C-alpha cells in the first residue's frame, strides 16, 4: 500500500520542530509500524538525508522504549499493543498518518520522536522498591501470598514504563504508571511494611516532575499497551490516604 506520513521532526531539544511529509510506497501489510519507519529511514539514509530518530530496542513489546503518538493515539489505533507490534495491516492504502512525539512538560523532546522519560526513573527512585539488602531474604516459600493477590500484583507489575498513559491523558498525568508500581508492592506481604512511605514518596516525586493530576477519564487505561487497570489508581489513592 501507499501511505503519506507526516512526521514531527525536531533537530534537538532547543530547536523548533515541525511536520515533514514523506510518501511511502509499497508498504507491506505484514510490516510493523517501526519496520515501516525503518524502511523510510533506509530510504532517507540512501538519499543522504537525516533519518527519523525514534527510540526502540526489543521490538517485542516489553522493553518500553518505543512509543509515538500516531493519528491521535499513543502506540497507534490498535489497543493493547506497543508501536513496535503495530501491524501495518491496520492501515489502508492511501492513508495519511500523523506521527508525533509524546507531549508532556515532564517528557521534553530530545530529537524527532524521542522524548526524555527520565522523570519515570526519578519517581521510581523515590520509593519504587522494597528496602531489602542482598543476602537478608527469607526462604521464598516462607512468605505465602494469596493467589489472587499475586495475580493482581503481577497484572500491575507488567507496566513497561513506556509513557503511553501520560501521552494519552489530557492532563499528562502519570497516575497510572505510579499506581501500577504502588499496587504491585501493596498487594504483596513483602511490600506492605513500607507501603505508606512508598505511596507518599512516589506521589511527591510525581508532582515534582511536573505531571498533571488525575481526572479519572480512563484515557490511560484505554491506551495502555499492557492494559493496566484504573483500579490501580484507586488503590494508589487508598494507599496514599492511609499514609497520613
Amino acid at each position, binding site marked *: 500500500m501507499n501511505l503519506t506520513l507526516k512526521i514531527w521532526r525536531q533537530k534537538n531539544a532547543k530547536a523548533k520542530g515541525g511536520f515533514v511529509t514523506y510518501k511511502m510506497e509499497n508498504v507491506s501489510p505484514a510490516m510493523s509500524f517501526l519496520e515501516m519507519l525503518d524502511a523510510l529511514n533506509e530510504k532517507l539514509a540512501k538519499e543522504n538525508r537525516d533519518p527519523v530518530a525514534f527510540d526502540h*530496542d526489543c521490538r517485542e513489546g516489553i*522493553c518500553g522504549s518505543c512509543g509515538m503518538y500516531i493519528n491521535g493515539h499513543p502506540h497507534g489505533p490498535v489497543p493493547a499493543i506497543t508501536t513496535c507490534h503495530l501491524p501495518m495491516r491496520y492501515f489502508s492504502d492511501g492513508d495519511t498518518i500523523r506521527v508525533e512525539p509524546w507531549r508532556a512538560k515532564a517528557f521534553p523532546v530530545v530529537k524527532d520522536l*524521542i522524548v526524555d522519560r527520565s522523570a519515570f526513573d526519578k519517581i521510581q527512585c523515590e520509593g519504587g522498591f522494597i528496602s531489602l539488602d542482598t543476602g537478608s*531474604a527469607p526462604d521464598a516459600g516462607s512468605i505465602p501470598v*494469596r493467589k489472587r493477590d499475586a495475580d493482581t500484583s*503481577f497484572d500491575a507489575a*507488567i507496566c513497561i514504563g513506556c509513557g503511553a498513559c501520560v501521552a494519552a491523558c489530557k492532563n499528562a498525568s502519570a497516575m497510572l504508571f505510579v499506581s501500577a508500581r504502588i499496587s*504491585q508492592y501493596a498487594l504483596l506481604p*513483602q511490600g506492605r511494611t513500607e507501603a505508606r512511605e512508598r505511596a507518599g514518596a512516589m506521589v511527591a516525586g510525581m508532582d515534582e516532575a511536573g505531571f498533571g493530576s488525575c481526572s479519572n477519564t480512563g484515557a490511560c487505561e484505554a491506551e495502555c499497551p499492557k492494559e493496566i487497570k484504573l483500579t490501580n489508581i484507586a488503590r494508589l489513592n487508598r494507599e496514599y490516604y492511609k499514609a497520613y
Partner: protein
Amino acid sequence: MKKLDSKIPDGPLAQKWTKYKASSRLISPANKRKLEIIIVGTGLSGASAASALGEQGYSVSSFCYQDSPRRAHSVAAQGGINAAKNYRNDGDSVYRLFTDMIKGGDFRSREANVYRAAEVSNQVIDHFTAIGVPFARDYGGTPETRSFGGVQVSRTFYAKGQTGQQCLLGSYSSLNRQIKKGNVKMFPRREMLDLVLVDGKARGIITRNLITGEIERHGAHAVVLATGGYGTIYYLSTLAVNSNASAALKAFKKGAFFANPAFIQIHPTCIPQLNEFQKKLTLMSESLRNDGRVWVPLKKDDKRQPGDIPEGERDYFLERRYPAFGNLVPRDVASRAVKERCDAGYGVGEAKLAVYLDFRDAIEKQGRKAIEDKYANLFRMYETITGSDPYKEPMSIYPAGHYTMGGLWVDYELMTTIPGLYAIGESNFSDHGANRLGAGSLMQAAGDGYFILPNTINNYLADEIQRPKTSTDTPEFEEAERAVTERINKLMSIRGKQTVTSFHRRLGKIMWDHVGIIRNGKGLEKALEMLEELEDEFWKDLNVTGSTDELNQELEKAGRLADFFELARLMVADALNRRESCGAHFREEYQTPDGEALRNDEEFAHVAVWEYAGKNKAALLHRELLIFKELEMNVRSYV
C-alpha cells in the same frame, strides 16, 4: 604470553564456594566508600551487581545505552528462572541442577563454576521473592514451578511469560534504591567505546553521550562488563536490535581473552520472518513446548491446512526421534531437528522454513482456560504479529539466534585476563558450556550480579584501598579518547553509498548461512573470505548521515557493526578450530550415523580461549583444559 589461571579453589566441589568466601579478603566499610567501580550494562547481571555493590557501600557508576536502565534486554526473557529448591519433592537438588547444566552444556563448562551457579540459584529465588517479584503462586500461596526443556524435574519459577521482565524490574528497583541513597550514580544513554588500562589494570572507560555526542572519560578502581550477548551478529535474532558486542570486543582488543566465541544458541521456537524489512525475530517461550507438540506433514509439499491433515499423516519428529524427552529436548537438539526437517523439504509455510507447534491436544485435554492461564500473553503476541489464532491453528515456528554461551574468558572470581576487569552475565563464557538450558540465563545473570561478584571483587580491591581516585587526566585516557574520536571520524568520513543496515543484513546472512545452526569446514572458510570482502566494502562504501555532535543513530549502528565484523572473524576461527560437534556447535563432518552431535573429548575437552594479536592478525589460541572430577564425560543423550 599470559597463562590462564582459573583460580578454582581446592577442596570438594560442594565446599569450594563456601571455602572461597571464608578465605577471600575483606574491606572495611570506610574503605569501600573510597573505592569506585564502573559497571557497564544494566541488565539483570549489571543492575543486580550495581545494587549489591552499592549496598555494600562501594561508589558505583552504572552505564547503559538505553534511556532507562529498565529497558535492558533481560526484560524480554520469557519462560522462567531455575532454582534447585525441590519444592515439588521430585528429586531435585543443587547437585542435580549442576548435573543437568554440565550435561546440557555438553561437558564444555567448568565444574566448579557450574556448581556454584546451581548453589546460589536458591538464594536468587529467595532474594527476588523478598524484593517483590510476583512469581506465580499456587492456591496455597506457595510459589509455582514448571518444567523446562532438557530436564525432568519441575524447578522453573516463573511469572507468566514475563519472568525476565519481572526479575529485571526487581533488580532495577534495588538499583533505584541505591541511586536514591547516592551509592550508585546512573549514566543512561551512554555507550562504552573503549576500555582504559593504566599499568596493565582496568582503570576506566571512554563513553559517548548518545544525546550530545560528547566523548567522556570515567575512571575507577575496577570495571565490570555486564554487556550481554552478541546474537545480533545474525542481524535477525531474538535480541534487542541495539544489543551489541562493542564493549566486549574493546576489552578483547585491550587484552581480555575471548572464550568459545562460536558457541551460540539458536532458539528453536521463534516466529519466522514475515517481510524483508524485519529487524527482529520474536521468541515464543520454550515453556510452550510443555504443552505444544512439534510436527510437520509426513508428505512433502503438503498444501493442506494444518487442521485438515489427519493424525496419521503428521510427523511428530521430536517425539519420534527423542522418545524420553519428546518435545522437551534441549534447544540445540530441537533447532537442529527443525532445520533437518525443513532442509529435507518437509517445512511448512510459503518459504517452507517453518514447522508447526500445535496446542490442539493440550486444549482438548486440559481445556482452553488452563492453556490461557499459562500462555495467554504469548498466544496474544503471536496473534498480533502473525494475524493467526493459535487456539485454532497451530503456530508456525523456526529457529533464530538467541544466546551466546561464548564470551569473555573469566576465572572463578569472574575476572577477565585483564586485572580489575570483570565480566558477568551473558557477557562472560562461564556457566553454560556449549549449550544453555532453558531458564538458566536469568539464574546465572542474577547469581553473578547479586551473589558472586560482590563476594569476589573485594579480593582484588583489597589491594587497591591505598590507591587514590583514578584521574582521567592521564596520557592513557587521552590516548583512548583520541582513538575513539579518530574511529568515529573515520566512520563519518567514508561518505560512500550504502547504509549501515544494508551491510548488517549482509553480514547477518553470511553468519546465519555458514556459522548458524549447522557448520562445516568449507562453509566456514568461505565465510571467512566473504567476511573479509564485506568488511572491506564496508570501510570503503559506507554512508553515515548526520554529524558527530548530536543524537545520531546511524553513527551508533555503524560503530557497533564495525565491531561485529571483527567478532565475526573470531567466531569463524573458533568454529573452524573446534573440529567436533558439541552442544550448539554442530559441525557436519562430526556426527553419528543418526545425525546426532559427535563430541571429541580427547582433543576438545577444553575452553578455546582467544587472545588478540593485533590488527589483521589471526588471534592466538589458548586452551583451558576442562577436568571433570565429579561427573563422567558421557554421551549426551535425550533419546
